[in-house]
C-alpha cells in the first residue's frame, strides 16, 4: 500500500510525518536538528530515501544534511559517519557547507553588487540555503537556492557545490532583497527538457535557462509592480513569491507574486493575471493538483505588512479553471481568530488519488486534506513556526 511522508522544516528543527495511503493516522518523528532553522527538506524523486536538508543558524551558519534512509539517520555529505575525516592525502573533508560565489574568469561572473533596501549597492554575501531541489533524474545532483540570491549545483550528493554564475549576470545590480532577504527560493525543472530550469528570486523576478544553467534570461513580461518598483513593468526587480508547474504541462506556469496571481502559457515568455475573485491577491505559496493541471491552490493573505488571512479566516482558495474563478476551501480550517501566515515553501501535494494537499503555518500547524482540499484536518498543531512542507508519495 502507498505511504505518504511529509517533510516539515521549522524555525527550531525538522519533523517527519508519515501515514499510509488513507492519510488518517499519522506518526510524527522529530525534532531532527533541534534548535536549528530548517529552511527546507526535499527527497530525490528517483531515490526517495535520499533526502537533502538545509540546516542553518545565525550563530553557526549553514549546514547541509543528507539522509539515505528516508530520514531515520542523517549526515553531512562531505563527512559520512564512520569514515575518516581526512582524505588519504591528509586533507580535511567536510566542505558540504561551502558556498563560494564563482567569480573566476573561466566559469564565473564578477562578484559585483546588488541593491539594498535603501537603493544603495551592497556586495553579494552568502547567508543561507533557502531551497534544495533534487534532480529529476540523478540522486546525486541537487540544486540549492541561496541568499544572497544565486543558484548552486552539486553533482556529488551534496559534498561540494558550484555556482551557476550566469544567473547573476542578468542585471544582478538591480536585484534587491524582499522582506525575507534577497533569496532564490524557487527552482522548477522542466521534466520534458532537462536543459530548462526556472528559478524565482525575491526581489528580482523569474529567470529561465535553456542550456542547463550556463546562461539565463529574465522572463517577467506582463508582471506589474506599481508600488514596489519605480518602473512598474521593469525587466527585473519583481518580488515573485513562488512559481508552480504541472509536469504534464511544462509550458504552463502559475505564479504567486507579492501582489497578483499570474499565469504563463508560453514557458514564462509572457504572463497574465488570474487573481479573479480572490479576496486579496497577496500571498506566498501556490501549487497545482497532482492529476488536474488546471486545478491551482493559493492561500490569500491580507497584505504585505499584516501577513495574516483576511477576517481571521484561514482559507485555501482553489481554482479548477486554471485561474480567475476561485472557491474558498474552509471545511476543517479555523474560520475565526486565526492570524497565522503560510510561507512560500510551506505547501505541497501528494500524488495519490484523490490528491492530498498539505500546508504549514507560522503558528506551527500542519494541515492536510486527503480529498484535494474539500476537507481539512490538522496533522500536528503545535510545532515551531513552519518554514517548509514537502511531500513524498511512496509506493
Amino acid at each position, binding site marked *: 500500500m502507498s505511504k505518504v511522508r511529509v517533510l516539515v522544516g521549522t524555525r527550531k528543527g525538522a519533523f517527519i510525518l508519515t501515514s499510509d495511503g488513507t492519510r488518517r493516522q499519522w506518526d510524527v518523528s522529530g525534532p531532527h536538528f533541534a*534548535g*536549528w532553522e530548517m529552511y527546507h527538506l526535499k527527497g530525490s524523486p528517483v531515490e526517495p530515501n535520499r533526502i537533502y536538508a538545509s540546516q542553518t*543558524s*545565525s*550563530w*553557526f*551558519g*549553514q*549546514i547541509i544534511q543528507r539522509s539515505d534512509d528516508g530520514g531515520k539517520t542523517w549526515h*553531512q555529505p*562531505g*563527512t559520512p*559517519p564512520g569514515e575518516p*575525516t*581526512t582524505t588519504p592525502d591528509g586533507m*580535511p*573533508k*567536510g*566542505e558540504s*557547507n*561551502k558556498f*563560494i560565489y564563482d567569480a573566476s574568469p573561466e566559469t564565473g561572473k564578477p562578484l559585483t553588487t546588488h541593491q539594498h533596501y535603501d537603493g544603495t549597492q551592497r556586495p553579494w554575501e552568502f547567508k543561507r540555503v533557502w531551497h534544495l531541489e533534487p534532480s529529476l533524474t540523478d540522486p546525486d545532483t541537487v540544486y540549492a537556492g541561496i541568499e544572497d540570491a544565486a543558484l548552486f549545483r552539486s553533482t556529488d550528493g551534496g559534498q561540494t557545490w558550484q555556482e551557476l554564475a550566469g544567473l547573476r549576470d542578468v542585471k544582478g545590480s538591480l536585484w534587491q532583497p524582499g522582506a525575507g532577504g534577497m533569496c532564490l527560493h524557487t527552482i522548477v525543472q522542466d521534466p520534458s527538457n532537462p536543459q530548462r530550469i526556472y528559478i524565482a528570486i525575491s526581489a528580482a523576478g523569474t529567470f529561465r535557462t535553456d542550456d542547463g544553467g550556463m546562461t539565463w534570461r529574465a522572463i517577467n513580461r506582463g508582471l506589474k509592480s506599481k508600488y514596489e518598483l519605480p518602473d512598474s513593468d521593469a525587466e527585473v526587480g519583481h518580488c515573485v513569491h513562488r512559481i508552480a508547474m504541472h509536469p504534464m504541462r511544462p509550458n504552463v506556469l502559475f505564479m504567486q507574486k507579492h501582489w497578483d496571481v499570474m499565469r504563463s502559457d508560453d514557458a514564462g515568455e509572457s504572463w497574465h493575471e488570474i487573481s479573479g475573485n480572490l479576496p486579496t491577491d497577496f500571498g506566498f505559496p501556490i501549487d497545482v493538483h497532482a492529476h488536474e493541471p488546471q486545478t491551482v491552490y493559493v492561500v490569500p493573505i491580507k497584505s504585505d505588512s499584516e501577513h495574516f488571512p483576511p477576517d481571521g479566516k484561514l482559507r485555501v482558495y482553489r481554482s479548477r479553471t486554471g485561474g480567475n474563478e476561485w472557491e474558498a476551501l474552509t471545511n476543517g480550517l479555523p474560520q475565526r481568530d486565526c492570524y497565522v501566515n503560510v510561507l512560500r515553501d510551506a505547501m505541497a501535494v501528494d500524488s495519490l488519488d484523490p490528491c492530498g494537499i498539505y500546508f504549514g503555518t507560522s503558528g506551527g500547524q500542519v494541515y492536510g486534506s486527503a480529498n484535494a482540499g474539500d476537507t481539512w484536518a490538522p496533522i500536528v498543531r503545535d510545532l515551531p513556526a513552519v518554514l517548509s512542507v514537502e511531500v513524498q508519495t511512496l509506493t
Partner: protein
Amino acid sequence: MIRVVLPAHLRTLARVDGEVKLEVMGAVTQRALLDALEARYPMLRGTIRDHMTQNRRPFVRFFACEQDLSHEAPDAPLPDAVATGAEPFLIVGAMAGG
C-alpha cells in the same frame, strides 16, 4: 593537550560528548587551535569562522581564563593556562536571544 569546550550544537555536529582534546603543533594561537579543531572535525568548518575569510562568525565568541578573547588577533599566543591544558578554551554561541 589543549582542551576545547564546544557549544551544544557543535558537539552534536562533531558527534562528541564533553570536552575535545587537541594536539596543537608549534605556538598555541587561536588560529592554530581552530586549524587543529577543523582538521580533526571537518564538519565544523564554516561554523566557527568563515570558509573564505577565516574571520570569526559574528555570533561566536571565544572565552578562556575568565577573559573574552574574541577580539584578540588570530596569531596572538593564547594564555599559558590554555596552552598547558590547565584551562579550557571555550567556543560559545553569543547570547543573542535565541
